[in-house]
């Protein structure tokens, strides 16, 4: 099946600043793809380009086999949920939802029917006549969704739809949005900078960094097989240590690693490295465990801090060779101030080996 939405080699600059570079992406029909990335990485710009509010400097946008790159937004038939909702303050809930249908000259009774069908979907029955400033933030959010969905768009675009809600409301609204999107089965692009939200709502997640796509894949892929150190550090918790490739495929870490000695740490290489290459090890807390004494290949250190987090207890270890590691272990594994040894648990989560950019010394 050909992809429903295809972005090819999109570029965008504002003046001197390059905001998106060589960006290509495919989204399947009915898929919910999350655009995840830190602030300023270009998520909103990409979404606005797809919606038609920004024109790419180069590249094409194709939807259902039709190129829309320079179509005006009103011709694209995409629904958009704005970060601050952008509800029409002078219209009622009902009129907001009906707006897109009226633009398309849908007959009155048909509009009525459609509004009556949508409001229950977003739990807003009985709010038809309210002004939009007379309802809560979460309700406004759902009006925004209903309004975007009303004209039956081909594609739904959501820009940080939950960022304006307080945390308690956020999770519930997230569930409601996800349910509504699934019920309709619409293809959706959802922008967020929160990894947990991304993993929760996305069939796939596209990770954006400084205008480039770092990796696109399912949440599991991103977590377990990060393709760059940026992905590894942005998705989930990870510590990093500098090292040098040894000739057995492991990584030498420690003060005397350049002399071929030091601790040898096993890891999965992303890319091909030759012995002697300077690399970086990314270690997940679950891929490490604590031992009493140095037994074989282990890093020694002192427990700096210990934080109980329900499903695991996190220990922050200050290493003797310098640097810090975050280790997940049982609550009674150690205490603050104790000397411990950290050993690898590659069977749970292997360390990943990435190249180190030049000039980024340890």
């Amino acid at each position, binding site marked *: 099946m050909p992809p429903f939405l295809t972005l090819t080699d999109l570029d965008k600059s504002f003046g001197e600043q390059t905001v998106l570079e060589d960006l290509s992406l495919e989204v399947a029909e009915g898929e919910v793809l999350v655009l995840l990335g830190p602030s300023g990485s270009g998520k909103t710009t990409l979404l606005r380009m797809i919606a038609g509010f920004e024109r790419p400097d180069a590249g094409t946008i194709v939807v259902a086999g039709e190129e829309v790159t320079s179509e005006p*937004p009103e*011709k694209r038939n995409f629904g958009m949920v704005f*970060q601050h909702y952008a509800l*029409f303050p002078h219209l009622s809930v009902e009129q907001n939802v009906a707006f897109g249908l009226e*633009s398309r000259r849908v007959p009155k009774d048909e509009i009525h029917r459609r509004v009556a069908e949508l409001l229950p979907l977003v739990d807003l029955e009985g709010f038809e006549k309210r002004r939009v400033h007379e309802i809560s933030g979460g309700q406004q959010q759902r009006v925004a969704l209903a309004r*975007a969905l009303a004209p039956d768009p081909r594609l739904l675009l959501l820009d940080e739809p939950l960022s304006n809600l307080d945390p308690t409301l956020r999770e519930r609204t997230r569930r409601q949005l996800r349910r509504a999107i699934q019920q309709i089965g619409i293809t959706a692009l959802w922008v967020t900078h929160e990894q947990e939200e991304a993993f929760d709502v996305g069939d796939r997640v596209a990770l954006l960094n400084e205008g480039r796509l770092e990796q696109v894949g399912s949440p599991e892929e991103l977590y377990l097989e990060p393709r760059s150190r940026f992905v590894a550090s942005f998705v989930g918790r990870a510590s990093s240590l500098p090292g040098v490739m040894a000739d057995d495929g492991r990584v030498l870490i420690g003060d005397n690693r350049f002399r071929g000695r030091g601790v040898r740490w096993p890891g999965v290489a992303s890319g091909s490295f030759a012995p002697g290459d300077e690399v970086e090890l990314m270690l997940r807390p679950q891929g490490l465990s604590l031992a009493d004494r140095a037994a074989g290949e282990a890093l020694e250190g002192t427990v700096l801090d210990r934080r109980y987090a329900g499903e695991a207890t996190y220990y922050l270890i200050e290493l003797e060779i310098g640097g810090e590691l975050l280790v997940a272990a049982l609550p009674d594994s150690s205490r603050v101030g104790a000397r411990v040894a950290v050993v690898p648990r590659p069977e749970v989560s292997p360390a990943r080996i990435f190249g180190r950019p030049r000039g980024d010394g340890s």
Partner: protein
Amino acid sequence: MRPEARRIAGYGVAALLTWLVGYPLLITLMEALGLPRGLSLEHFAEFARRPDEWQALWRSLWISAASVALAGAVGIPLAFVFARTEFPGRRILGALVALPVALPPLVGVIAFLFLYGESGFVSRGLQSLLGLEQAPWRLSGPAAILLVHAYSMYVYFYLFTRAGLARLDVAMLEASASLGAGRVATLFRVTLPLLTPALVGASLLTFMTSLASFSAPYIFGGGFRVMTTQIVASKLNGELSMAQVETVTLAILAFLGLWAMRRVDPGRSVVVGGTRGVAPSRRVLRRPLVKAGAATLGWGLALLLLLPHLTLLLISFVPPGTWTVEALPPVLDTSNYESLISTPERLRPVVNSVWMAIAATVGAVVLGLAAARLSLKLRGRLGGALETLLSIPWAVPGTVFAISLATAFSVNAPAMGRVVLVGTPWILPLAYLVRSLPLTGRSSLAGLRQLDPAVEEASASLGAGRWRTWRRVTLPLLRPAVAAGASLAFITALGDFVTSIVLYTYDTRPISIEILSSLRLQETGVAAVYGVLLMAVSATAFLVWGREERI
């Protein structure tokens, strides 16, 4: 709109505004410098040689400075009373005391004349009370001008101070109190310093308004000439070059004022520290005596301020020739109103003023809205230029504009962008339009700045084209701001006197000019009817403005 199309539209509107706003001023400057015959400072040298010119300049400056002091002395305490205490009738009085700013200056001036003038109520009353041969005083000269200025311009101090006080965070006052400062110390060490930007803004505004003031010096000045009246006198004497030099001088003073205003920017600097706190609550006066005292003071003051207008209303019911030596008018009826309605010649100025004001307002709204929209969309140099062009007429005294328009549009040279408009019915609406541009332009800018651009994008993403978005989303959301600007523009145009006196023709004479000639003909009753008419319309429009733009 496509970016290229928008740029072209931007340049088009900028060119139109330059032609209307900047070009006449430039031509006046050039003619004052002897161009196109040959560059010379001859006219300026002549200006410098004449002592009466220096005298007028000096008088303009000191009258303005004194007006600031007097207006501040009335407006600031009044604002504190209304912002900080609660007494019966506070709300309605608080709105009423701001009213003089909306009334046409000429109306205020004649109302004063009827109340405190030689044959006004107060002097007649005193005369008969004390058995005097003559009126106890003559309302003329600098004292009379200052009285009128203080009376109408205290409103700036009142409004600015109230706005400043409303934005003051109560936590700051509490912090001061918790640090051991008493009431007085807090007032002088916290409140007033924080109000300084507002007060400086009000001072500059008063200074500039008073520099531009024409009605009061014209009616009360007599031989006491300030720059504005000097200019009009030169023009009427046929000394056009001298009028131009005087105009340029006054314009320079005004631009200096504008420059100073820009540096202070009272609108924004009043907010301290970014986040807005809670304004201090009003003190509810509990002791009955204090409460009655405050109420009496408030009502007394308001009555004093509104008395001239009540007088105007009363005079409008005095039939011609019936009030001679009595202290109070012996007969009251509606004959003045009837004569206005039944005499086409008397109705004519009303019709003139109304159609010209409507035309000017519509033009100013359309042009102001277009320029504001383009200014915000384009940003950059062009956007900035549009915004500046919109605000220039606000700083330029009406007299300066009138002389500039009279200079620029009395010559037919289409290639130079000059056509003869002086003497046609179009010059006054055009002059009104230009003078109203800052009102409509600034309110459009304010409205557009508050508009979330995402709302228009939301409309587009819902399939609405540009026209539908404009009609269904943008315009309804801008309506309050536009209505506010339009009502102020309409008031200004309807009651205009300064530009009219330079540019009117007999056929297009507006109400203000008719008031003047009625006064000359001793038809005070008719003059009062016109005044009441202007007052009623202006107050209505002001209430519309107040409803849309809450202070």
